[in-house]
């Protein structure tokens, strides 16, 4: 089930081109069959929005939605690996805030160069992820507790560093990381696409990807099969930490400021996107394509409700109902498929 969902990239021989085409078609079919429920939900929501608000389907709005979901995408991609592994990570929201605040602080207060500041920010965030992984792998404390502790610690560090306030930054060469465009496509969208590709390759084409599924499916069997389960765990949490730190820095650039109180509850959005995308909380099951769709559905719901000018209180209710229904449609489709 882990195989064949993207084209093999190092495939150059000519006589392989038929096979390659075959693989693409098969990947596409797989994509449809595995995500049919959420696809239907997404189409339904989009159809309704297209009819009710003319702006929805404009290119501009679509790009704006893509930019808005880029943060959640980064977090949800990392979260996907962790959930497939059978874990959970509550600390990503805090790491987003901490990495953004520190990086901006290093530049604005610490007068560091932009590149070293970004590297240091990324490094510290990644380190938090690695610390999660090491604690989980070596102490046997449940991921929920380890990452809950990290959630508080990272949040605290961001606050302490900045004294609780936001730190402003004006340096164009930094803020353009979050606000710039390549052609008409915003940078954050490009990062997002980049990470999606990396993740698809990682999960479907590398050993690590297989091992993640193995660990989540049956930890004991994975151990007895000679998989270095600690190394896999640490790697996965480290990746999630890196992605969170990256998202935090981009977000800070977009906001022209490092904000230590930002991104509260982002971990829940990321988890919701995963579960919406069919990643099972009990581990071992799920596909990156599902998560991607989950993130998109949540993004489209948010965007649509804002476009329609729905009052923020009603938005809460509407979002709750729509998420529930989207998963329900997915469940029904899955059952029928069986």
């Amino acid at each position, binding site marked *: *089930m882990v195989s064949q969902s993207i084209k093999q990239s190092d495939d150059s021989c000519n006589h392989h081109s038929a096979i390659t085409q075959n693989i693409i078609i098969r990947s596409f079919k797989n994509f449809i069959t595995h995500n049919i429920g959420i696809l239907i939900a997404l189409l339904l929501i989009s159809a309704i929005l297209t009819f009710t608000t003319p702006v929805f389907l404009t290119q501009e709005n679509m790009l704006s939605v893509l930019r808005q979901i880029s943060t959640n995408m980064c977090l949800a991609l990392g979260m996907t690996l962790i959930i497939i592994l059978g874990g959970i990570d509550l600390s990503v929201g805090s790491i987003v805030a901490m990495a953004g605040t520190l990086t901006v602080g290093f530049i604005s207060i610490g007068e560091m160069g932009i590149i070293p500041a970004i590297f240091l920010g990324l490094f510290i965030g990644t380190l938090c992820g690695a610390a999660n992984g090491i604690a989980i792998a070596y102490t046997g404390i449940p991921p929920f507790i380890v990452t809950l502790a990290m959630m508080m610690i990272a949040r605290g560090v961001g606050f302490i560093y900045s004294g609780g306030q936001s730190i402003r930054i004006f340096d164009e060469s930094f803020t353009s990381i979050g606000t710039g465009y390549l052609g008409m496509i915003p940078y954050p969208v490009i990062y997002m696409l980049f990470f999606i590709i990396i993740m698809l390759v990682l999960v479907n*084409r590398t050993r690590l990807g297989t091992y993640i599924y193995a660990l989540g*499916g049956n930890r004991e069997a994975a151990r007895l099969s000679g998989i270095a389960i600690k190394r896999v765990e640490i790697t996965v949490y480290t990746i999630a930490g890196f992605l969170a730190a990256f998202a935090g820095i981009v977000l800070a650039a977009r906001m022209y400021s490092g904000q230590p109180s930002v991104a509260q509850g982002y971990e829940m959005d990321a988890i919701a996107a995963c579960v919406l995308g069919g990643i099972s909380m009990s581990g071992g099951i799920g596909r990156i394509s599902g998560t991607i769709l989950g993130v998109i559905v949540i993004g489209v719901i948010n965007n649509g409700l804002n476009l329609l000018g729905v009052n923020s209180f009603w938005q809460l209710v509407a979002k709750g109902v729509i998420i529930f229904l989207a998963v329900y449609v997915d469940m029904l489709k899955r059952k029928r498929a069986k």
Partner: protein
Amino acid sequence: MEQVVLQLSHIEKKFAGVHALKDMHFNLKPCEVHGLLGENGAGKSTLIKIIGGIYKPDAGEIKINGKTEIINGIKDAQSRGINVIHQEIVLVPYISVYENIFLGREPKTRLGFKDHRQMITKAKTMMESMGLTIDVLRPVNELTIAQQQLIEIVKAISFNVRILIMDEPTSSLTDKEVEQLFVMIKRLTEHNVSIIYISHRMDELFTITDRITVIRDGSYVDTVNTKETNIDELVKMMVGRNLNNYYQRHYQSDGECLLEVKNLSKKGVFHNVNFKLKKGEILGFSGLMGAGRSEIMQAIFGADQYDSGEIYFDNKLVNIQSPQNAIDIGIALIPEDRKKQGLILGNSIAFNLTITVLKQFMHGCFVNQQKQKEIIQYYIKKLNIKTPSADKIVGQLSGGNQQKVVIAKWLATKPKIIILDEPTRGIDIGAKAEIYQIIDELCANGIAIIMISSELPEIINMCDRVCVVANGQIQGELSRHELTQEKIMKLATGRA
């Protein structure tokens, strides 16, 4: 007309893509022990689940005591005196034995609370009457599999049972407990209970049953009186052809020593374990349940720690810290519990077959999927794994085919030593013969094999030498020519 307590006719049951039962017939006489026999996946468990009210048949008729009835769920079946001991252990792990026994029908006090005292007293009485010494206050997860299996039996009998169904109750029991079980069964039949008994162990069927019904591919084949049949006839009915050479073994002349274990000890588990393993031989490990055989092998394989001792491979001292080390050296362990330790049930055959050897398919950072596919196809063919495709989810295969996947997964690592822990548990006779053939072939190719088994016929007919383990110690070693049931049991029970 002869009296019949239970009669099933024209039963049909389909699962998605599988026609599990086709026009099935079955009848059960009062006070008889009726064996059900068939290959893995023949539909035995499905049939008894229909009787037990767990599945509803798609078509067909069920008569109880001559009256046509519809069984509506488990409770309904139980209220009619039908009770099932399932193939898989279905106890709740973290609650006590007595709570498990009374789960779903706890007695209440006047105030409506659970009556712990009554449950404990009753449970203790039941245990005693079965001759068991398990503390009913202990949580089930602290018990051994064998003990859990016995609890299941006690639980089933504790109902007011008329028809008792046992789905492979002995697959994790040793001879002593099996004897105990048979005494219990005899006593039950004397008390007017009819029993349906499923097992892949032929000798048991001949010992305990009065009649045997054979199923093949979900269809009824025949019902015979046990006294009027023999193994060969049954096997033929079961697999549809004659099966000669049940145990296959081509003994080799002595090879060089491949593995030597010296004074291996782990406090409270095993002590001073010493043995040598030669190329091309099968070294058996026999003993009672819980003797410590699995633990010794787990330690050698690096899956568990040991306190002291040395392991020599090819006359060189080796330090095995983890399963990876063992695999790198060339040791493979096929664990006793394929569901918990061997397989990732939610994933495909292909996935499971290749996780031990992914390293071989690396193309830079990426996995070479073409090469991977070739290997998968090779092993599916070589071990004759019955499946429509390599993408089938392992959890959906029959037990025998699952076991073959585990074996294939380890053969793929091209090991020099294979440790087999209960390799044929829960596997039908046809598949067993196939596995024996594979084992024999491996030996012929110079691979050394350690085989732990609780089935004495298997040990006696396959092994070159046998170490008998009791209380974590090797009590003695028997060569091929000395092997008899009595000698092994004497050593295993410490009566030597």
